[in-house]
């Protein structure tokens, strides 16, 4: 607690310094942004911000790199509580309810006065807007958004006698392919696993791919009721557990996110599920020919979306709010969105960004970039509720308990549902 108080004081003081060091004429904006995928993203944001500032001398934007997504929301909420919030920030789309509950953000609808602005609010992919709206109001504008896809090693496919151009399309095929791709040495020890669905830290995200494919939604739109004990959810978890326990095509236990691309490059796994945010990384580092495809389907195709949205904070002047709105409009415009996508691999959040010459050139060069966009048609909102971090932790704990064989899937999910109900009861 001492640590926490000290941190609050220090951050508060830092924010105070930043806000007093302003000039009277120009509008000053402080902008917090996270980086989840390495250094290039930070440079791109800085370059875009500078470009905007050069074209608009009456606006000064202080772009602050705030760490990971987790660090960014921690810093932002600390600043909000200290009375000195940033004017705008990129934060996980799923933290929307948390920010609303803290009374920290305002909806964009009030700022969109002209018809053009109102049309702009509806110009994004609907799959991304699912996590950005509640109660008919838009609280977030999609920016660094992603979705998980399937990467496969074409050489390993050839070696196993599979068509290197065809990824598994269904759950059954995924197991069948996995069995062919899993190689064991003379001692019976595995030298190459068939597939890999990482599960450390936040297993709920990729698990949501499985539940969507099994045609079930984990939480309602109002964010106050979860659906963890639905038989279809249990079935999805059983499938995930069976990949290791029954079919032995995936390494048992919790699988690390961070080392997943490395395991793929090292040939330790022939297929992996991971975020499109890794696309550029895999392109640069895989020593073999690889393919990128949509996640396999069961009852339907499906994947969650992920990543961060822009939010505008309540505790600022009207000029600051209007200036933030203009800046967000500019940075999510087609040309800027295309630059951002090409630099990082994040999915450009609106259809017209894909029609720009730069983007057309990029996808002609590197067609896998299109897979994520095409998958959006089947994508659903990432799990998001009130008390979001706590609810997802409850689900994560249940998933980890099932994956490590400590609890049966049905029992683990029933307990998780009971606990989530207890917490969300206050919000109904």
């Amino acid at each position, binding site marked *: 607690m001492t640590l926490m108080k000290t941190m609050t004081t220090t951050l508060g003081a830092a924010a105070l310094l930043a806000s007093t060091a302003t000039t009277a004429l120009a509008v000053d904006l402080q902008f917090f942004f996270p980086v989840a995928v390495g250094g290039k993203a930070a440079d791109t944001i800085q370059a875009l911000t500078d470009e905007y500032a050069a074209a608009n001398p009456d606006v000064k934007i202080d772009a602050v790199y705030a760490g990971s997504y987790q660090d960014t929301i921690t810093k932002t909420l600390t600043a909000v509580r200290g009375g000195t919030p940033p004017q705008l920030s990129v934060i996980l789309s799923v933290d929307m309810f948390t920010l609303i509950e803290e009374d920290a953000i305002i909806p964009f609808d009030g700022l969109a006065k002209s018809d053009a602005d109102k049309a702009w609010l509806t110009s994004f992919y609907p799959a991304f807007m699912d996590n950005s709206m509640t109660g008919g109001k838009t609280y977030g504008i999609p920016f660094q958004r992603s979705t998980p896809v399937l990467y496969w090693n074409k050489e390993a496919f050839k070696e196993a006698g599979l068509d290197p151009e065809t990824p598994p399309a269904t759950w059954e095929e995924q197991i069948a392919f996995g069995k062919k791709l899993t190689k064991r040495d003379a001692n019976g020890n595995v030298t190459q696993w068939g597939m890999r669905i990482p599960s450390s*830290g936040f297993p709920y995200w990729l698990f949501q791919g499985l539940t969507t494919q099994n045609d079930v939604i984990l939480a309602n739109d109002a964010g106050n009721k979860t659906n963890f004990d639905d038989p279809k959810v249990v079935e999805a978890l059983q499938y995930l557990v069976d990949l290791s326990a029954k079919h032995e095509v995936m390494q048992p236990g*919790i699988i690390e996110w961070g*080392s997943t691309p490395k395991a793929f490059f090292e040939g330790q796994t022939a297929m992996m599920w991971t975020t499109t945010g890794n696309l550029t990384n895999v392109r640069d580092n895989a020593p073999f020919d690889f393919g990128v495809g949509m996640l396999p389907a069961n009852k339907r195709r499906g994947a969650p979306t992920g990543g961060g949205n822009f939010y505008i904070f309540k505790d600022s002047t009207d000029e600051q709010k209007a200036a933030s709105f203009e800046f967000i409009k500019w940075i999510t415009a087609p040309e800027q969105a295309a630059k951002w996508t090409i630099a990082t691999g994040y999915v450009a959040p609106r259809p017209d960004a894909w029609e720009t010459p730069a983007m057309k050139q990029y996808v002609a060069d590197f067609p896998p970039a299109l897979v994520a966009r095409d998958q959006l048609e089947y994508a659903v909102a990432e799990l998001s509720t009130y008390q979001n*971090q706590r609810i997802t932790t409850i689900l994560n704990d249940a998933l*980890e308990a099932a*994956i*490590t064989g400590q609890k049966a899937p049905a029992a683990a999910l029933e307990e998780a549902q009971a606990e989530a109900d207890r917490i969300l009861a206050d919000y109904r």
Partner: protein
Amino acid sequence: MTRPSLTLRREWVHGWLLLTPALVLLFAFTHLPAVTTIWDSFFSTPRGRREAKFVGLRNYETLLADDTFWQVLSNSLWYAAVTIPVSVGLALLMALWVDGRLSGRGFVRLAYFAPTVLPLIAVANIWMFFYTPGFGLIDQIRGAFGLPEVNWLGNPDLALGSVMVVAIWKEAGFFMIFYLAALQSIPPQLREAAAIEGASRWTFFRRVTFPLLMPTTLFVSVNAVINSFRMVDHVFVMTEGGPDNASSLLLFYIYETAFKYWDTAYASTLTVVLLVLLSALALGQFFLLDKRVHYR
């Protein structure tokens, strides 16, 4: 008659003036936060427009019914019970070894001390590589002997142990330095006298060296206790408390509650438990061990 009391008062004022800077810092950054923490633990968490309200002991009732808390507490106690004696024991062994005559002594000392210099986050990242299933260092060595791969951090039975090993590896070298300094301050006459008396090396260690090291042992063990509850950086990097809280420690859970769930009231309640626990341990150590410590 007035004069002595005036001098007394002036001394009194001087004394307090000298103490003030330290007191202000101590109160502002240690005592005040501790008291507000205890105070906050009797209120609900303020959220947005909802103010904090007095809830009495409700946070403590939640605490008693919270399975995660009990698991985390037992993890923390196991963590302390294993890492403290092992790292202190290892430190003593290493110090005794590098204190003796031995070729390349400077290099061995440096090697033992190296982990201490590294930041814990860096250490955790190095160990992540050691522990990686399949192509990590440990599994590559196991693979050379035909042993199957082990998911050290992803198995609930192994995760806490794996995290403990990192802490011991990091801590032992640091404590070794204190033991080494203490060993070198033991007068060589004692060894000569013991040799004349015909005492075995073990008797000499048990009857002479070890008692003389007791002040260092007390200091080191107080530090070890504090560190075992304070150092959780590697948990963030390596497991994030998983799988299913198997490697979560009390301070990590407090951080999660405060800065992930934003339930500051419950985080305060958990912090009170940590405060009580640490105070009890510190008092116990000073009062019980102090009697057995021989200061020269």
